[in-house]
Every structure is written in structure tokens, then in C-alpha cells.
């Protein structure tokens, strides 16, 4: 009984982290699907989202606002605005001038941007990690057998629900709206889409903005869940999210969601049963293993080579 409880607890924890990873992974996978580049600065956009949210929460609390939902919503909106603007600006400054060049060039530019943003926040806000107030406390407890009690905190529920809402809105947007349709067209064939009168530059900017907005949501959620932020907060999460995107098949949005969940669960299982220090080893090992058997990821389209 206890084993089962422990297992379910790890599963819940894993799904929580995993759904947040999925939110970040979407930014990677959409950008990759459209212009075929790894946006290395995406993890930093997520980190900036977390910082902005914390700044907004602190500011609003200092102003005397006490109604929690309002604080959270305002913080979320601020984080989304700053992160999406950042995402847009990064694309304009660092990626658009090098688009269409050899594929290493945008990659190096992205790595440079990532280093720049990390140090920008480091200089402005200091390198120490800052505590994120736990605003959503408490949770359900059930299935106690005297030794171990399984719990599902309200914070975890918030993460699930928010992720679910974001994913639904994104799916609807991509499948129904005019811009979403244009996004799909551009990711299939950029040149052809542009010939058919789609403003590809605008669509690419839109992709960066959507990815950054989702990353900002993840930044607020995970910042609160982990309880602290620091300038290096984005790097490892970005790496995990990118791994998740590749795991699910880069370029595929459902793949990113699936990959995020798998990665989150495998991570929390490793921390639960082996050791927390080796969780990253297991995630990357899992990635290598899956790619060996499915070289384009779980839901990725097999590459057709034309001669």
C-alpha cells in the first residue's frame, strides 16, 4: 500500500513539473518548426518572466493589494508582456539578420544572446537567489497509511489547470485562427507560404511572442513552485524543455507536451527511487535511448530524403 502511495506521489510531482516543462518546450518546438533554429535564449526569456512576476508580486503587495487572485493575474499579465516583448526584440535583433545563413550562425547568435540576457539580469538584480513567496498554500491530503501521506497541493492543481488552459487555447489558436493557419503553412513551407501572400516575417514574430508568453506563464508557476529564482534559473530548465521538445519530436506541438510529461515523470521517479542528483543523467540518458530507436523523436515526422 505504501509503495503504491509513494509511487502515485512521485507521479503527481512528475506530472506537475512535466506540464510546466511542456509549456516551455512549446516555445522551442514552434520556433524550430518554422525557422529550423534552436532558440537557445528561450530559457532566459522564461527566467525573465519569473523575475518580472516576482517584481510585480512584490510591488503589488507593497502597494497594499491583498486579494490573491488579482495579484496573480496582474503578475501573470506583466510577466507575459515583458517576456513577449523580449522574445520579439531578441528575434529582431539577433535572429532576423542571420536568418537563412548556415545553420551554425543563428545558433551561435542565440548562445550569445543567452549569455547576454543571463548577465543582464545578473547585473541588474544580483546573482543571489531570491525567495519567491508561496502564495498558494495548503492542499488535499489523502490515502494515509500511518507512515506516508499522499498530498496534492493547491499549487500543483494551479499548475495543472493553468497548463491545461494554455494548451487548449494554443491548440484552438493554431487550428482555428487565421494567424494559426498561417503559422502551420509557414512551418510546412516558408517559401511557398510567402509566395501565397503570407507575411512570413509577421508570422515568425508571432511565433516568438507566443512561445515567450507561454514561457512567462511557466516562469511564474515554476518560480512559485520551486520557491526561488536566480539568473541561472533559466538555463537548466531551458535545457530540460529543449530535451522534452526533441524527445517528443521537434516541430510537433503535441510532441512537446508529451515529451514534457515524460521528462517530468522520469525525473521525479529518479529523485524518488534513486537519488535527486542523478535525475538529469537519467533524463539525458532517456533522450539518447529514445533517439536511438526513433531518430526523429516520439511524434516527429520521419524525414523524407529527396534526391
Amino acid at each position, binding site marked *: 500500500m505504501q509503495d503504491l502511495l509513494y509511487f502515485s506521489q512521485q507521479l503527481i510531482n512528475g506530472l506537475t513539473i512535466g506540464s510546466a516543462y511542456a509549456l516551455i518546450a512549446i516555445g522551442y518546438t514552434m520556433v524550430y518548426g518554422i525557422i529550423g533554429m534552436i532558440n537557445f535564449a528561450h530559457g532566459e526569456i522564461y527566467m525573465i518572466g519569473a523575475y518580472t512576476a516576482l517584481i510585480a508580486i512584490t510591488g503589488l503587495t507593497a502597494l497594499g493589494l491583498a486579494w490573491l487572485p488579482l495579484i496573480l493575474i496582474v503578475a501573470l499579465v506583466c510577466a507575459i508582456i515583458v517576456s513577449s516583448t523580449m522574445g520579439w526584440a531578441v528575434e529582431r535583433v539577433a535572429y532576423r539578420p542571420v536568418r537563412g545563413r*548556415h545553420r551554425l550562425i543563428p545558433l551561435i547568435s542565440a548562445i*550569445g544572446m543567452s*549569455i547576454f540576457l543571463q548577465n543582464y539580469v545578473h547585473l*541588474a538584480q544580483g546573482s543571489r537567489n531570491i525567495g519567491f513567496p508561496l502564495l498558494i498554500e495548503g492542499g488535499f491530503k489523502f490515502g494515509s497509511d500511518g507512515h506516508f501521506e499522499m498530498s496534492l497541493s493547491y499549487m500543483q492543481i494551479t499548475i495543472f489547470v493553468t497548463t491545461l488552459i494554455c494548451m487548449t487555447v494554443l491548440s484552438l489558436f493554431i487550428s482555428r485562427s487565421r494567424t494559426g493557419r498561417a503559422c502551420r503553412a509557414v512551418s510546412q513551407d516558408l517559401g511557398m507560404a510567402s509566395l501565397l501572400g503570407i507575411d512570413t516575417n509577421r508570422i515568425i514574430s508571432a511565433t516568438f511572442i507566443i512561445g515567450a508568453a507561454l514561457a512567462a506563464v511557466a516562469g511564474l508557476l515554476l518560480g512559485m513552485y520551486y520557491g526561488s529564482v536566480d539568473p541561472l534559473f533559466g538555463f537548466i530548465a531551458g*535545457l530540460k524543455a529543449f530535451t522534452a521538445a526533441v524527445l517528443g519530436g521537434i516541430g510537433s506541438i503535441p510532441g512537446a507536451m508529451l515529451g514534457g510529461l515524460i521528462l517530468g515523470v522520469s525525473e521525479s521517479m529518479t529523485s524518488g527511487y534513486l537519488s535527486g542528483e542523478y535525475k538529469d543523467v537519467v533524463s539525458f540518458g532517456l533522450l*539518447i535511448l529514445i533517439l536511438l530507436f526513433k*531518430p526523429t*523523436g516520439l511524434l516527429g515526422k520521419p524525414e523524407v530524403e529527396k534526391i
Partner: protein
Amino acid sequence: MASNNYRHAVFCAIVTLIISFPILGLNLEAQGVNITLTGAKTSTIVAIFLAAGAVFVFQAFRDSFSGLLGKLPKLNPLADKEPMEQSKRVKLESWILTGIVVLALFWPFVVSRGSVDLATLVLIYIMLALGLNVVVGLAGLLDLGYVAFYAVGAYTFALLSQYTGISFWMALPLGALLAGTFGLLLGFPVLRLRGDYLAIVTLGFGEIIRILLNNWTSLTGGPNGIGGIPEPTLFGMEFGRRVKGEGNTSFHETFGIAYSGEHKVIFLYLIALVLAVITALIIRRFMRMPVGRAWEALREDEIAARSLGLSRTAVKLSAFTIGAFFAGFAGTVFASKQGFISPESFVFLESAIILAIVVLGGMGSQLGVILAAIAVTILPELAREFSEYRMLIFGAAMVLMMVWRPQGLLPMRRIHIKLNRQE
């Protein structure tokens, strides 16, 4: 048209404000459990608004600015000249390389100890960049975890010297071979992956190695690292004040000169120089051998190369293994130079810097890579006064170089013949 420009300019100025004000203008301060928000110094706020104003002015008058820029004389005086003849170019490049080596031989005897130390580091980076150049520049395989092989070389020497007391000269081939073996083992399964999948797998491998080194405390000492790594000896002569190894003599006693700490630094530098030259020469030979041509053929057109009978796996694997081998080489030298290593020296940033050197050097050209290694290592040292802003500037410089000169300092050109089409 003009009003459109102004609208765009206002928009850009607002964007500048949004991305800079919340992060720069409002500072979080943690006091115990409480966090307070304070406004930044007035000068920072003023700077933010000045920046937004500058962006506005620049965007509003962009057309006139670009007109002015077009009138400026060309930055590159050679831009309009005919490119040099190929045979001349190759000869010139060899002459320059020889010149650099000769200059480097005299370098340690005229400058201070700190500069020699820095120069040794530059040479280590040159070895690393030349090795990665084979993988990325010649074979076109994107490797983001190159630092893992560097770490393997360094830790091989450190661990062997700790447990078996091995000397530098024994460890050098062993470290390189072991790193090469790691390259072979990793490369064998993953080399059938396409470019960017390969990138993330190698990145993951680099992280795995770093985490293992960090957490396998019983073997590697974890974050505390390993110290007491011996320095190289010259035919059994040690450079320390006292002789540590059994049966060794000391350098200054053998030659009857006064002890000086500089001997050791200079000796290490010369070893690194010799090894860097050997690395460059070996790779230069490889580039002209069939296997080198095969790397480039596969990079240029995989399908065509395969239909001409090249084995994709064998060719890619050879490039990957050779790259890893030289990283191990450099790692051993690094361990010996520092005398102490910890996982902190083998983070992703290192991989990124080496990759930046290769791309900046012009992917494939040896002279370019060497010049880029010198620039990338020395410039941040010169910018010591801005130590806080060093990495910020480094990141921005990486982006700007890619935007302005993506082909690198000296792009590689192959000897080729142009066919004149008959009208």
C-alpha cells in the same frame, strides 16, 4: 512614409522601455524572508530613458543614417581587389603560420610570468578549437558537448596520478586515447541522427559527464575537485624547488642555475606550444588525406557522397573520434597546468566558447581558428577593468559578430577551378 517611420520609432522606443525598465529599474532586495522592491539609482533610470530616446531617434531617421553609412569609406580595403591566387594564398598562409610559431617560441623570454601563463591557456584553446574544427568545420557535425572529452582527458590524468602516480608523459597519450574512445562510444550510436538532434544529444552527454564528475564523490572528489596533479618533467628533471618524484632530479641543480619559478611556467608553455603545433600539423595532414576530403564531401552533400561509395558512419565516426582525441590531449595539458581540476572548469559555457572560436575563425580554416582562439581568450583578459560586464559584452559581441561577419575572420577556401561557360 514619414509618419510610418515615426510610428515605428515610437513603437521601438516603447519596446526598449518595456524590456529594460522592470528588470533594470526595479531592484528586488531580500532581507531575511522579506523581499522589498526599491527603485534603482536615478542615473540608471535616466540611462533607460536616454536609451529609449536614442532608439527613437535612430529608428525615426534610419533612412538618413543608412544613407550616411553608405558614404563612409569601405572598412575592408581589400574588398574591391581581386582575390589572391589560390596557390599564393596557401603559401602565404603557411608563411604566416610559421611566423606565428617562431614568434611564439621567443614570446616567453621577453614578457612577464602572467602573460606566459595566459599564453599557455591560449595554446590549450587553440588545441581544443583545432580539434572541434575537425568535427564542426570539416565534417559539419554539430557538437555542443565537446567539453566532455576535454574533461575526460583532464580527469584521466588527475585520477591516474592520484591512484597510480603516473607521470605527465604517460598520461598524455592515455588521456587522449581514452577521450577518443569515449568519442567512438558516443559517436557510434548517435551519428545517424540529423544535425540538431545530434546537437542536443552531445549537449546532454556533456551534462551527463559533468554531473557524474560532480556527484561521484568517492572517485572524483565531487565539487571539491582533485588537486596535487604533477607537472611535466624534462627527462626526469623536475621544475619544483624540491624533488618530489622518486629517481627524479631537479632542473636547476642539474644545470647549476639558481631556482626560479619562471622555469616551470616557461617549460609548460613550450610543451603546450609543441603539442599545439603537432595538433595543427596532424590535422593539416588529415585534411589532405582521403579521409579529410571525405569529411568535407559528406558535409557538402551527404547523398552524393554516399552514392560515390563513402561509408557515412565510418567517415563521421573518424571525425568525431579524432576531435575527441585532441580534446583529451588538451585536457591533459590543462590538468597539468592548473595542478587542480574541478567540474566547474567543464561547463557548457566552455563548449560554447570553443564553438564560437571555430565559427569566428571561419569554420575549417586553421589560421582563422588560431587567430580567433587568440582573440577570444585575450580580449576578455584585457577587459579586466570591466570584469562585471565582461560576460555581458562577450555575449553581445558574439551576436554582433554573427550579424556583421558571419563567415568568420578567414573563411576557408578550397583550391578550385572555375569553368567558364561558353556563350
